Each structure stands twice: as C-alpha cells, then as structure tokens.
C-alpha cells in the first residue's frame, strides 16, 4: 500500500503587494545604512536586516527605487569627496586621494554585500553592477575631474622621473594610485590606458631619448651597453613594483627603441664600438651587445653582418699576405688560428647562433677560394705534419689539428684539386719512406672519407695496399733469387722494388735513363719473376723516383752516400772518368739535361760537396752544359753516411703544372659523366638547365666553368651521345 504525499505549500509565502509607503520605508532604512557605511560607522548595523530589506524590495518589484536611490547617494558622496581631496596641497594631495580611495573601495564592497540580492536578481545589462556603479561614480566625479586627473598624472610622472634619477619614492603609494586607474576602468583597462599609460609611455620615450643621446656621446660603447642593461632591469622592476602588468611589453619596447634600436648604427661604428670589440676580442662586451641587440628587430642582422664583414676582411688579408703566399705552412697555421679565434667569439659572445655561424662559414668560403693556392697549401701543410710534424703532439692535439684541416677543406670549392695534390704528396711520402706513422695517415684519410665518401679516398687506400703487396712481392723475389740458376753468375746487390698499380698513384712524368748493366739485369729478373707470378701484368720502370746507396772510397776514408737513382747514375760515371761535363753526364746516362742539373746541384753546392766544379766558379748560378765537374777527393765529413736531397721538397713549377693538367683531364671526365647521367634521366633539356644541373651535381667536388661544360657538351655531340633538336638549337636530346 502506497501512501500518497502532497506537496506542502507554506501558508505565509504568497507575497503581498507592497504598499508604496512600505517600499519607501525600506529604502530610507537602507539609505541611512549606506550613509553610515560611507562614514565608516557600520558596526552597529544589522547585516541580516539590511539584506532582508533589499531582498524584500526586489521581490516586491521595487528594485528600481533602490537602484536609482543608490546611484544618487553615491553621486552625492563622491562630489563631497572631490572637494575634500582637491583642497589638499602638495604631497598631501596624493596621500589624501589615496586614503579616500582606499576607504571608498572598502565601502563599495560592503554596499555590494548588503545589496547582493539586488545585484544578482535585479541589475540587468546595460545597468552597471552595484560595485561597478560605485567605481563609475568615483571615476566620473573624482578621478577624471579636471581638478584631479591632470594634477595626479603630472605628480605620478614627476615621481617616476625622480626615481629614474636615483631618488627613492613611495612605491606602495604609487601602486595604489596607479591601480586606481585600472580599478575604475569598466572594460579592458580603458581608463588606465587613456588617462595614464599613454602619457607615461610618452614621458618614458622622452626621458630615454635625451638620456641615451647624452650618455653615448660622453662614454664608451661598453659603458653605454652596461647602462642600457641596468636601465632595462630597472624598468622590469618598475613594472612589477607599481605598474599594471599589461604595460610591461609596451614599456620595454619603448625603452628598447630609444636605448638600443635608435643607437645601433652608432654602437657599431663608434670608435669604441662593435668593430673595436671584435678586433680586440672583447668577448664580454660583445656578449652584452648580442643580448641587447637580440631584443630589437633586425638587431642581430646588423651585428652579424658587421662580424661576417670583419671575418671576411681578416681572411682576405691572410690569404693575400706575400709571406703566406710563399709559405704554405704559415698560411694554413694562420687560417687555423683565425678560425679558432672566431669560433671563440662565436661561442663566448654570440651564443653559437646558427645564423652567425653560417655567415662566418660563408665568409671563409669566399676568401679561401679567392686564389687557387689553398688546395695545394693545405695538402702541403698536412704533408709536413705527416712527415713528422706531429711528432711532439699527443693524440688529442693531433685530432684537433686534423679536424681543423677538414674544416678548411670543407670550404674549398675545388676539392678535386686538393685531392690530386694530396695524392701526389702521399705518394711521395710513401715512396720515400718519409711517412711518420701509417696510423696517422689512415686516420687522416678516414676523415676525408667521412667527409666525402669512398670515392674520394679509394686511390689513397689503394696506395697503402700496394705498399703492403710490394713487400710480399719483394720477399718472394728474394726467395726466387736464391733458387734461381742465373743468380749464381751475378754479383750480389740489394735491390728493392715497389710495385705501384697504375691508376692509384699519380702518374709521374715519364723519364728515361740507361741503367748500369748489372742493375738492368736485376730489373729484368724481377720483371720475369713478377710477370710469372701475376700473368697478364706489365711492368713499367719508374727510375726517376728511386733511391740508392753507393760506397764512396776516398784515399783515407770510406763514406756511404744516400742518393737518388739519377745521382747514383751520375756518380757511377766517375768510376771511369776523372772529369765530366754536364753534357757528357747526360750522354752517359740518357737523363734529360734538366734532371741532370737538378740532380747535380745538391752534390756540389750542399753542405758536403762530393763533386767540385773545375775550374771553380764563384756564385755562377746557372749551369751550362759545358761546365765540368770532378770528384772532390778532399771531402771532410765526420759522418759515415751522407744523405743528399734528391730534389727540393716542394715541387717545381713544371711538376705543379703537370698536377693541374691532370686535374683538368679528370674534370673533363667528371663533367662528361655528369652530363650523360643527367641527360639519361631527363632525356631532353634546355642548355641553361643542363648547365645549372651539372654545376649542382659537381659542386661537392669542384666548381666547373661554364665554358668548360659547353666544350664538353660539344664534344659529346660529336661523339653522338647527344644531339640538338633541329627546331630548337638550345635544347639537347639524349641518344641512347
């Protein structure tokens, strides 16, 4: 059985229509209370009674009496306050205004609390909420009144000016008064912005404009930068202390404009400015400058351009210095030094900014390729290091140097030229046994490999393989000789041969000479042995790069001379003759006159003279073919073994040109290959596009000249790889 329940309606709840007089009574009760509140006498009032009165008026639809009444009371009150505040003089004005404002705000909160029911249930847009109404009345009748507003703003700005000049002001008072502008703003802080912020920002710009102009003309750039930094910190603090936070970005922008943006050019150009700082490695000042310039638009672009310009200029000086042009070692050492220096600037001052690094790299690229010296100089630099220059360095130092070499190498646009020179000097090191350490050689090569891939280093690695295989071949040859029949008939000499695979090694210019019969027989034996072991191979003797040791018997003493093969041949001639002219030497050995000259020179003009010129001629530099030489039997030397340089360490001009020529030959092949590769995939292409594509493909190795590509295209057309379109001569077609 379910019990039915009925909704119980309490009997007293039907609101009676309120008499006008009753409404009036309630309003007067509230009005008296509000006035008491405004006089700070609230403690004897009953909150519940006032709340109930406001509630009763609203539910009896008499809210209008209450709302308009409130407006009037506030109006009246604020007008009274205006007179009181305006009468205060000097500093009293701010204090009086502030204390009245603080009280007023509290009163409005209280009034809002009492009239909470009115606020929630009666007030509708566009009417102001109870509290906002109070704020609005204050704004209308006090704050923006002509007797207050201008006076207040002027005093506030005056105090801020004083503070900027180092005086102490009442921050709490400032905060309260400035916050007042925000509090009375109905939406988006409009009163604050219009009445205060705008004038404040203007005053700020004005202040810093004149301060910065004065300061920068009387101080160094470094001092100015420090001043700016301090000013910015002060303004940041000011925002926190008494400004509305929405002013922050605007204030800082205004300061940055006046303090930094407007003086950027000056800071770069002035005597103590950016240029001097870079020149003198003033890392801290530059760091500060970087930090400050970073804050303004395009600031870093200025700084970056200035720095990159300086780098380019310094690099340009180094690569064109006459001493450096003569001495590759000095050139590369100086380049590594400035690279280190600028890397330090980049990391210590410019936060290793990507843009800065890139523009420094671009600068390096441009001056390193200013002349074609660099490829060879770099190869020579490494050559010297690998011939023993690394002797006194530890692994870490060596690695650092190698990495710097790679870094410079990376900037070279003609990497193929460098490669040729590197191979050339590597070959010389290996063949003359002058390489300091095979490990280091291989480390260096592996770095190139990492940088440019297998293709770049395959020949170099081939050279090492040859060296190893040669050793095996030589051991085999020695065993062969012991068992050979012919061996019994021949006097014993110690011959060492290296078998170089053609293609891996630089091609040395062909030279011919006549070997003494004994040596010649040994060579034939080796050829026989080797070709038997490796069928299908052909041996070409390169006598011009060999070395030999001969015994030099003097009346009282015996020396061993370490000579080049050519020098050996020349010295052997003196077994059968006392005096020989250069012409006779050439005839007796079949060596070219130029090589005779070069070979003889160290023998008579070095520290130990095994030959002498007869008659003795002083300081006659050029040798003629009729000059006559004889053995110097009076040679005085404590050493048993005397070593003679075969040729100078650096290459002679013809050799260098030979290397360059070979680079050009290789380039032709590379360009041909690139053109064919491109045309094969694209089938048909316009001339210019082909040039562009070709240059792009080859750029990692070298920068081909357009004229050269054109020639290669012509050549490929002749060889029927390509043809021109009959109707459009600028287009090519690939012929499969």
């Amino acid at each position, binding site marked *: 059985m379910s019990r039915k*329940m*009925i*909704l*119980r*309606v*309490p009997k007293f*709840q039907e609101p009676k229509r309120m008499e006008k007089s009753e409404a009036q009574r309630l309003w007067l009760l509230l009005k008296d209370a509000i006035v008491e509140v405004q006089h700070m006498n*609230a*403690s*004897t*009032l*009953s*909150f*519940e009674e*006032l*709340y*109930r009165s406001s*509630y009763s008026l609203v539910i009896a639809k008499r809210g209008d009496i209450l709302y308009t009444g409130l407006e009037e009371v506030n109006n009246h009150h604020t007008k009274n306050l205006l007179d009181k505040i305006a009468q205060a003089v000097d500093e009293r004005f701010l204090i009086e205004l502030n204390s009245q404002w603080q009280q007023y705000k509290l009163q409005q*909160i*209280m009034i809002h*609390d*009492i009239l*909470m*029911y009115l606020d*929630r249930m009666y007030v509708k847009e566009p009417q102001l909420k109870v509290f906002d109404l109070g704020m609005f009345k204050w704004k209308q009748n006090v704050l923006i009144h002509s007797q207050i507003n201008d006076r207040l703003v002027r005093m506030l700005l005056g105090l801020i000016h004083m503070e900027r000049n180092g005086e102490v002001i009442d921050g709490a008072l400032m905060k309260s008064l400035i916050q007042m502008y925000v509090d009375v703003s109905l939406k988006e802080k409009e009163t604050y912005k219009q009445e205060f912020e705008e004038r404040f920002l203007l005053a700020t710009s004005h202040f810093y404009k004149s301060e910065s102009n004065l300061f920068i003309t009387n101080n160094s750039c470094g001092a100015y930068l420090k001043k700016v930094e301090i000013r910015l910190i002060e303004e940041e603090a000011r925002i926190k202390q008494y400004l509305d936070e929405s002013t922050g970005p605007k204030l800082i922008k205004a300061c940055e404009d006046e303090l930094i943006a407007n003086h950027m050019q000056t800071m770069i150009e002035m005597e103590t400015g950016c240029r001097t700082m870079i020149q003198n490695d003033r890392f801290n000042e530059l760091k500060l400058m970087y930090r400050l310039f970073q804050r303004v638009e395009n600031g870093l672009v200025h700084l970056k351009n200035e720095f990159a310009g300086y780098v380019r200029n310094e690099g340009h000086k180094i690569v064109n210095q006459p001493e450096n042009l003569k001495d590759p070692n000095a050139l590369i050492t100086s380049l590594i030094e400035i690279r280190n220096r600028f890397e330090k600037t980049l990391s210590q001052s410019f936060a290793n900014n990507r843009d800065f690094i890139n523009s420094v790299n671009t600068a390096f690229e441009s001056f390193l390729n200013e002349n074609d010296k660099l490829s060879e100089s770099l190869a020579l630099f490494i050559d010297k290091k690998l011939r023993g220059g690394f002797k006194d360095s530890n692994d870490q130092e060596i690695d650092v140097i190698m990495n710097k070499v790679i870094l410079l190498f990376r900037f070279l646009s003609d990497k193929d030229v460098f490669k040729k020179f590197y191979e050339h000097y590597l070959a010389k090191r290996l063949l003359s046994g002058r390489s300091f350490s095979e490990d280091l050689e291989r480390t260096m090569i592996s770095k190139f490999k990492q940088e440019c891939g297998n293709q770049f280093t395959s020949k170099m690695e081939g050279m090492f393989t040859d060296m190893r295989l040669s050793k095996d071949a030589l051991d085999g040859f020695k065993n062969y000789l012991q068992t050979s029949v012919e061996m019994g008939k021949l006097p014993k000499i110690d011959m060492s041969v290296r078998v170089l695979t053609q293609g891996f090694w630089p091609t040395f210019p062909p030279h011919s000479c006549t070997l003494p019969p004994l040596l010649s027989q040994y060579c034939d034996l080796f050829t026989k042995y080797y070709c038997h072991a490796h069928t299908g191979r052909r041996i070409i003797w390169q006598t011009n790069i060999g070395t030999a040791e001969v015994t030099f018997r003097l009346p009282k003493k015996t020396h061993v001379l370490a000579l080049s093969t050519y020098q050996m041949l020349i010295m052997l001639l003196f077994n059968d003759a006392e005096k020989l002219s250069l012409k006779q030497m050439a005839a007796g050995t079949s060596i070219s006159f130029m090589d005779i000259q070069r070979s003889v020179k160290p023998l008579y003009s070095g520290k130990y003279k095994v030959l002498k010129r007869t008659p003795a001629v002083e300081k006659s530099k050029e040798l003629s073919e009729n000059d006559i030489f004889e053995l110097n039997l009076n040679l005085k030397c404590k050493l048993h073994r005397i070593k003679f340089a075969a040729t100078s360490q650096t290459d002679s001009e013809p050799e260098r040109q030979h290397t360059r020529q070979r680079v050009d030959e290789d380039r032709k092949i590379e360009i041909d290959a690139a053109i064919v590769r491109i045309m094969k995939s694209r089938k048909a292409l316009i001339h210019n596009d082909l040039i562009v594509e070709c240059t792009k493909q080859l750029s990692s190795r070298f920068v081909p000249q357009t004229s050269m590509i054109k020639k290669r295209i012509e050549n490929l057309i002749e060889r029927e790889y390509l043809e021109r379109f009959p109707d459009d001569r600028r287009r090519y077609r690939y012929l499969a």
Partner: protein
Amino acid sequence: KNLFINENQEENYFDFEIICQQTQKKKPFSFKTHKSILSSRSQYFKSLFNSKMKEYQENKLVLQDFSTSIIALILKYLYSGKIEINLGNAIEILIFSSKYLIEELIEISSKFIKN
C-alpha cells in the same frame, strides 16, 4: 535537535550562533555553528562576516522568516553537502536557498518540485 556536535561541548569550538525566532510568542532556538564552515560554503555568510557589522560583533544571527526544522536542514546541508528533501519541505528549501543565493540548492529543490 542539534545534529553536529560532539559529546564533549568543550571540543566543538563553536564561534557563531544562529537563532531561529519566527514569532515573538515562540521560544527562540539556537544553533551553534562555525564561522569558517559557513563562510566557506556560502557567499551570504562570507559577506556577513566581512562586513564587520552587528552580527559579526555579537557572533550571532537572528533569522525570522524560516522554521527551525528548515534551518536545521539547511545547516546540515552546508556542513555535509547532503539534503533530505521531500514533498513536505521542498518549497521552503527553495525559498530559503533563493533568498540566500545558494545556487546548488536552488537547483536541487526546483528540480524536485518539477518532478
């Protein structure tokens, strides 16, 4: 009738009294309560205390318009978040919560009445 007290009066730390006095004839009923709870649960009480008016000075509030049982229910609600609503008290709860702007209770009671 007082719902939220410990056995030991000393340990309750009451600091505010709510007195229900519907008419002069009836004997007033007093609820012992805590300001901190009331002010954290209701904007009305928060404002009442902040105003520092008579009620704050005397630590007591006199309510005239509602019965003891309704006030007890509402106080229980403010303390516990729970309300025992039924056909007998729903309208009075709605009126109370409307007057004192207790949003959640307005919703609960008007929903109950509609159903």
